């Protein structure tokens, strides 16, 4: 019932948005996101919440789906609140908003299905559906650059998911060659993979990792990400970075839950390699860019790299990884939503033309400061603890070269980001304006509180959920 509601409510909300039209269409999106977040919280923490398999086994409620359903719906609620505030503040933004809301709610329904699915093909279809809904949201009318970025996003999504599908077919052949009846149900696959590893499984796993890596924006197939994150409206960028990223990550988690034990070396080498390469390309791009929205996009690639390395390591890094992933979702939402406000005020994305943010736009300046410190992995944020646990596992597992590369890239990223962002915040005031409306601040404040809470004190129920997700990934 709960799973059905999580999927049905956004679809009904989408229809309601189209029906009521104009600025009132934003209300259903906020109501749906709030209801879904409440359902997600109940599913995650209530003692009597349902768990197990539903819908003939196609949907599963387990620790991973509990955590991520809550996370993506909470991020979506934040984005919905942001959009509502913006439309109230600037009524001209209500033009055509019902189409945006309907697509965003369809995106949410597909995202929930991708997370809850217990079947590889269902999860794949849902992820593809999120791309179909998101591409028109990136392609703003009247902006050829945005249309090009949307095309790049959609093309890479299709190619990446195509490779994933090819990987699934190879994995099925591996089971077939072992003389068994293949299945795409995750719980059944766990038993089927106990067979002897063969070339089909290795090739299949490599394709799946590369395919999901493309969706996560990992090197070498990352070039769509900076364009899409830069050109999309800030609310859409926050949705891509905070919701879709996590849906693709859940797909990768599911594969690793099944195949890591059988192919530990392949998984480890591929993911650590992709992660380090992503960190390297993003670091050099951060140094080169003067566009603050692109800088945040490159930082997202960097974070994707850290996550891939954490996943490749497994073991004790897994708990840190979960902490890092959840923190990362909040950080990206705060930063991209703040970047939108800054762009709106200064009418430029060039960092050299933005100065004195803390005086010109105190609230946005403050959120950008907090978000940047969290982005760079400072205490007391959850990202600090997550990164620390991943680094310590690197040393424990004797990945010395990776450790050195990781630390070097992190240091350069730290310096390059600070050198670019901090003058924007504390430089001389360059564009004083009327006092800033604080409509969107509560949303970001909630995310900041969540970030600090994860670094300072995790309530037992949340910590237990994180431990359960880490354990399902083979962590300790």
């Amino acid at each position, binding site marked *: 019932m709960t799973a059905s509601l999580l999927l049905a409510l956004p679809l009904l909300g989408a229809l309601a948005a189209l029906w009521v039209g104009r600025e009132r269409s934003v209300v259903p999106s906020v109501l749906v996101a709030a209801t879904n977040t409440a359902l997600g919280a109940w599913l995650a923490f209530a003692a009597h919440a349902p768990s197990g398999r539903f819908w003939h086994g196609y949907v599963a409620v387990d620790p991973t789906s509990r955590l991520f359903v809550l996370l993506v719906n909470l991020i979506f609620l934040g984005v919905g609140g942001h959009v509502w505030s913006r439309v109230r503040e600037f009524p001209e933004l209500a033009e055509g908003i019902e189409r945006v809301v309907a697509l965003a709610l369809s995106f949410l329904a597909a995202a929930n299905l991708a997370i809850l699915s217990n*079947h590889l*093909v*269902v999860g794949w*279809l849902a992820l*593809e*559906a999120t791309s*179909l809904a998101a*591409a028109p949201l990136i*392609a703003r009318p009247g902006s*050829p650059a945005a*249309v*090009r970025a*949307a*095309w790049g996003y*959609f*093309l890479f999504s*299709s*190619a990446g998911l*195509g490779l994933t*599908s*090819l990987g699934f*077919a190879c994995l*099925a*052949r591996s089971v*077939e060659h072992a003389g068994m*009846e*293949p*299945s*795409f149900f995750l719980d059944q696959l766990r038993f089927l993979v106990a067979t002897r590893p063969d*070339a*089909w499984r290795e*090739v299949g796993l490599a394709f799946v990792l590369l395919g999901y890596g493309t969706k996560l924006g990992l090197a070498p197939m990352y070039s769509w990400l900076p364009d899409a994150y830069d050109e999309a409206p800030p609310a859409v960028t926050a949705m891509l970075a905070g919701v879709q990223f996590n849906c693709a990550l859940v797909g990768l988690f599911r594969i690793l839950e099944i195949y890591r034990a059988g192919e530990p070396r392949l998984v480890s080498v591929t993911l650590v390699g992709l992660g380090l390469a992503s960190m390297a390309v993003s670091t050099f791009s951060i140094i080169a860019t003067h566009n603050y929205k692109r800088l945040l996009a490159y930082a997202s690639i960097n974070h994707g790299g850290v996550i891939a390395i954490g996943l490749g390591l497994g073991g004790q890094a897994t708990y840190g990884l979960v902490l890092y992933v959840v923190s990362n979702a909040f950080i990206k939402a705060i930063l991209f939503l703040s970047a939108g406000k800054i762009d709106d005020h200064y009418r430029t994305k060039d960092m050299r033309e933005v100065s004195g943010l803390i005086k010109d736009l105190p609230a946005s300046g403050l959120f950008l400061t907090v978000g940047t410190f969290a982005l760079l992995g400072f205490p007391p944020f959850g990202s600090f603890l997550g990164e620390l646990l991943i680094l310590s596992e690197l040393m424990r597992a004797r990945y010395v070269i990776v450790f050195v590369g990781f630390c070097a890239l992190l240091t350069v990223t730290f310096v390059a980001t600070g050198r670019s962002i901090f003058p924007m915040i504390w430089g001389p005031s360059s564009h004083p304006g009327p006092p800033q409306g604080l409509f969107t601040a509560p949303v970001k404040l909630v995310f900041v509180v969540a970030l600090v809470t994860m670094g300072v004190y995790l309530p037992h129920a949340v910590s237990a959920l994180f431990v359960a997700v880490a354990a399902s990934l083979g962590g300790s």
Partner: protein
Amino acid sequence: MTSLLTAYLLVLLLPLFVASWRVSLAGLSLQGILMAWMVAAHHPAPTADIAVSMLDLALVRGVLVPFALGRVLRAQRRPVREDVIPPNMLSWGVVAGLVMLAFQCASWLHPDPNGEHLQIAVAATGVLLGLFVLASQTGTFSQAVGALRLENAIALFELGSTGHVPLGLRVGQVAVFAGTLLMYAHFVRRIRPAAATVASGRLL
């Protein structure tokens, strides 16, 4: 089956050397039709699964793909010439190398040289050439062709499996593919190639 796969291989290769969007679309269409023919030859008794496969291969890939993209290109009055890969010796050499690599991979994955071996080799060729087209082109239409070649190669590879996806999900896959195709057509329509610069001034 072997003759159909050989024909498929030719349909994969020929459009790469003929720089025309009509030939590219005809190639994609023929790929779908040839796959539908393979299904019909392999499963003479019709079932719901086969019907969905035929709908996907013959109707969507064989007819809808050239129709949707061709309509956009005709409306834009695109010039006949449209390179799928850069027209030079290096590209052609890479294509030859990729075909050999695909056959080597197939021998490694499936050492038994029966019909399935050829199917895997041709599908692998399709995957590698699709990725090559995607990597070497910047034009919207050429990139869409690369992605569709990749999708067709995956479909050819999946023909060899014994069908483990329930009917409802197969219908979902077909719907998502059709949606993807329409989105490609939408972007090809919206992103027009830069207009050729008209030379000004006299020569000599």
